[in-house]
């Protein structure tokens, strides 16, 4: 059984034909829509490398069946930068050296982006808990925490760790 899937990715209407509905959303993005940003590592929901937004909500794309994405909105790491200008989270990862092999980075960047949309100045325990579903085998996480703190301080220079973002809903 083969289906057509229409999905909006990073604001663009996309259509994929000949999709087998047992494929994951991750496969659809990487192999059919040419977006290799979300990484394929464990394929079991364990590592978070495949993290994307689905209808504005953070998910593991490897566990979403492609058929379930029909008619929905996806935002991947490729959709975070504004043209040539990196998102503050991406910029902070570069500057703090939070990237070694880079395999975990796209997932972590999207997860950190989501956190900073919900919490302006997260505390360290809040950062740790929010990134608990993203595993990194190289950095030991210290530089990643530093990157998220730096991005938070730039997005909200006045705030203090622990203050909730305005309009936080989930």
């Amino acid at each position: 059984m083969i289906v057509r899937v229409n999905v909006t990715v990073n604001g663009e209407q996309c259509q994929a034909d000949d999709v087998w509905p047992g494929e994951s959303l991750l496969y659809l993005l990487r192999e059919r829509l040419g977006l290799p940003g979300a990484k394929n590592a464990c394929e079991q929901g364990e590592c978070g490398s495949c993290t994307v937004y689905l209808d504005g909500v953070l998910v593991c794309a490897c566990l979403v069946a492609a058929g379930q994405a029909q008619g929905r909105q996806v935002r991947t790491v490729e959709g975070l930068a504004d043209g040539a200008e990196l998102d503050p989270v991406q910029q902070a990862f570069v500057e703090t050296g939070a990237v070694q092999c880079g395999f975990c980075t796209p997932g972590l960047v999207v997860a950190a982006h989501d956190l900073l949309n919900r919490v302006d100045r997260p505390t360290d325990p809040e950062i740790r808990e929010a990134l608990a579903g993203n595993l990194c085998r190289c950095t030991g996480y210290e530089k990643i925490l530093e990157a998220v703190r730096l991005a938070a301080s730039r997005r909200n220079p006045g705030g203090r760790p622990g203050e909730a973002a305005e309009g936080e809903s989930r």
Partner: protein
Amino acid sequence: MNPFEYRRATDVAEAVAAVAERPDAVFLGGGTNLVDHLKLGVTRPGRLVDITRLPLDRVEPLPGGGVRVGANVRNSDLAAEPVIRSRYPVLAQALLSGASGQLRNLATTGGNLLQRTRCVYFQDITTPCNKRMPGSGCAALDGYTRHHAVLGASPQCVAVHPSDMAVALAALDAVVRTHGPAGQRAIPLVEFHRLPGAQPERDTVLDHGELITAVDLPAVPATRRSAYRKVRDRASYAFALVSVAAEVELRDGEISQARIAFGGLAHKPWRAQRAEQVLRGAPATAATFQRAAEAELVGAQPLADNAFKVPLARNTLVSVLTELTELTGATEPTQEDTP
């Protein structure tokens, strides 16, 4: 992965019929367990009926003060629901202790109840497993049993149920509402999951094609305190070695009501009725809590690698009860994130 047919259901009756008419058809919720199992080859359905667009995504008040949770309500949304945080903190805490933000955003209430064991031999299709392939044997018995059961196991299967949410629901006396080919049913949560016995392939009492539509939470008096405590190998993002869901009411230093359930110990959320009997009417003291824990765990039968679970369960229960009975105000879920 085997080829299969995919259908998106638009109403409950259609979804039930689409699964009931084919023995190899299954419902698809958030997919966080089922999609994983499709890839691993643990299950090979011929048809997937996607139920996530059915209108079962609401949390509604029930007459009499209870709450109805639709089967498609996501774990993250349920944990963030104000009525759950204020009146059922044990449930909010259990939900937030499970999986990761990315997974809780996908996982549904119905799917969480029906997630399958994390026994590694069940997930590894090259090893014998009576749950995956009835009659093939149980690789865990001669294997590594640190994560397996100490209560209610059978010679056919020693797996544990992995859900945190279900443990809280067992303590809350929740009721599972279903819609099946034979009509509708209301099943108390404590009778919903089975012990393995001679049929470990059956995790629950559900029939083929029976859809969970909602979970009902009974009303709780304002004086009741509740909490969930999960002990695991790291601070976050790991399954429970042992967990405790507890609800107590106090009157003049005496425990007037207690509901306790253990996770990580058995093939189902383990409602600790023997412990509850000891607690009811007894003074809220460390000695009482100790006796209650002993009464429940006296029948434990540890395997080669998991004897530690018995004292761990005892100490966790004593510690949770101590904390709950020392508290004065209402309990709020202690949560560090709200994804």
